[in-house]
């Protein structure tokens, strides 16, 4: 009969125990606080604030209409994509600034900054919601693994147990456990994504700031 090595089982079960104790601590009637489901080591900051990434002159209210400027809206979509190398994205910003007429220069750069902030902040929030959903699934999976383990333990203690059934339940237990571990690993990677978005946004915003300042000087 195939069982997980004792150490692996121990590690998995201690993780399960932790998750289950967290789940048990929540009363059914209680609303789950978003922070409770946040599985990343970094403290949850649900949304970015403009002063975190913007060091330039105050962005005027009109810049919130950035979606109505087709060229700016397209540029926002393009620059936000992480597959566009940073140097290339920065050059695209400089080329865009170069192409602007003096009377529209700052106004449209402000729109670009506002657009990048809103778009990437939203993208970051989506990623964070996704991370929380995976964390919620992990809690449910931990609960089901605990039940599978109890059933398997009592089955293996029964001398009259059907070997085929023992084999089936063992394989099911191993499968669930493996899935749990793989998801836990992927959460570690996905937790980096909000940081990567924040990092990219900061660098793009910092490319825009001197272009506005230069023009003003």
């Amino acid at each position, binding site marked *: 009969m195939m069982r997980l090595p004792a150490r692996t089982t121990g590690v998995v079960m201690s993780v399960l125990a932790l998750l289950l104790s967290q789940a048990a601590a929540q009363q059914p009637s209680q609303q789950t606080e978003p922070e409770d489901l946040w599985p990343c080591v970094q*403290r949850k*900051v*649900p949304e970015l*604030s403009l*002063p975190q990434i913007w060091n330039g002159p105050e962005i005027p209210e009109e810049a919130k209409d950035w979606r109505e400027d087709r060229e700016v809206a397209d540029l926002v979509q393009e620059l936000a994509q992480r597959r566009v190398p940073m140097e290339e994205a920065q050059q695209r910003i400089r080329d865009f600034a170069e192409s602007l007429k003096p009377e529209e220069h700052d106004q449209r750069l402000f729109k670009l900054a506002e657009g990048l902030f809103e778009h990437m902040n939203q993208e970051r929030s989506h990623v964070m919601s996704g991370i929380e959903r995976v964390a919620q699934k992990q809690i449910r999976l931990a609960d089901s693994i605990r039940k599978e383990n109890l059933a398997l333990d009592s089955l293996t203690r029964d001398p009259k147990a059907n070997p085929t059934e023992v084999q089936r339940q063992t394989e099911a237990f191993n499968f669930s456990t493996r899935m749990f571990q793989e998801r836990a690993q992927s959460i570690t990677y996905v937790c980096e994504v909000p940081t990567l978005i924040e990092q990219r946004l900061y660098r793009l915003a910092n490319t825009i700031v001197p272009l506005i300042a230069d023009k003003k000087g």
Partner: protein
Amino acid sequence: MRRYLPLLAISLMASTATPALAYKAYISNERGNSVSIVDTETMEVIETINVGQRPRGITISHDGKYVYLCASDDDTVEIIDTATNKIVGTLPSGPDPELFVLSPDGKRLYVANEDDNLVTVIDVETKRMIVEIPVGVEPEGMGMSPDGKTLVNTSETTNMAHFIDTETHEITHNVLVDSRPRFAEFNPDGSEVWVSAEIGGTVSVIDNESREIKHKITFEIPGLRTESIQPVGVRISEDGTKAYVALGPANRVAVIDTSTYEVTKYVLVGQRVWQLAFTPDQKYIISTNGISNDVTFIDVATDEPVQSVTVGDQPWGVVVAPN
């Protein structure tokens, strides 16, 4: 001719006294598994050293000869010879060392072991562990009183500052602070210890005589969500008049007047500001900015950021050589 020599010497001294002195700043890059060495005069990286895994806490011997570095994932403290910039040995730190502090006489290193709820005391000369002190859950911040008699360790989960007598290695006082305390720093006369709380978003100023909180500093930055203000590293100027607090994802360093405990300025530096270190002449304070992968030099006289320098991947800690 001879009688003019002293005058010539004075004029030469005067002409060389003005420029900022060049020191070496050592920056641990948590993800890059490296240490960047930055010349504080040219503000350029002059060398990068490959080190152990997940380097975080970093300090230097008082004579400037050895840099000590917590290689957290290697469960060791590495010793770097500053003359050759080579790793010349290790110290038995215990598991997952994160931050540490050197005693004022330079003989003992006190290491916080995050995973084991211990503070490990190491004899630097013999490279042996002297004692392990059980503390609260997830110990992190380590502050040493100027007289070397009191060590303050903060525990992230227990939310406490533990006062430890360095003679007996016993905890004498526990002070409850705000959530996830990260750093402890004594002021130069030893009358106060400042403890930052990352989730609580505060700095507690604890009276070292009564061992009670005498003031709690809060931070408010217009337009910024409170969750993004996460105080971590704290440094107090040599003359005791100004304190600097790194505010994590707020991307700013707060400057505080220590006589009023009021924030006088927020300096925008880089992303996720973690730790701080003064240059020995107190001309600059350097911040490590973990996500923007750079360090920022802040002019202490004006509290203006003067230069950002790109270093390795995820800069975490910083120390400046005393000579």
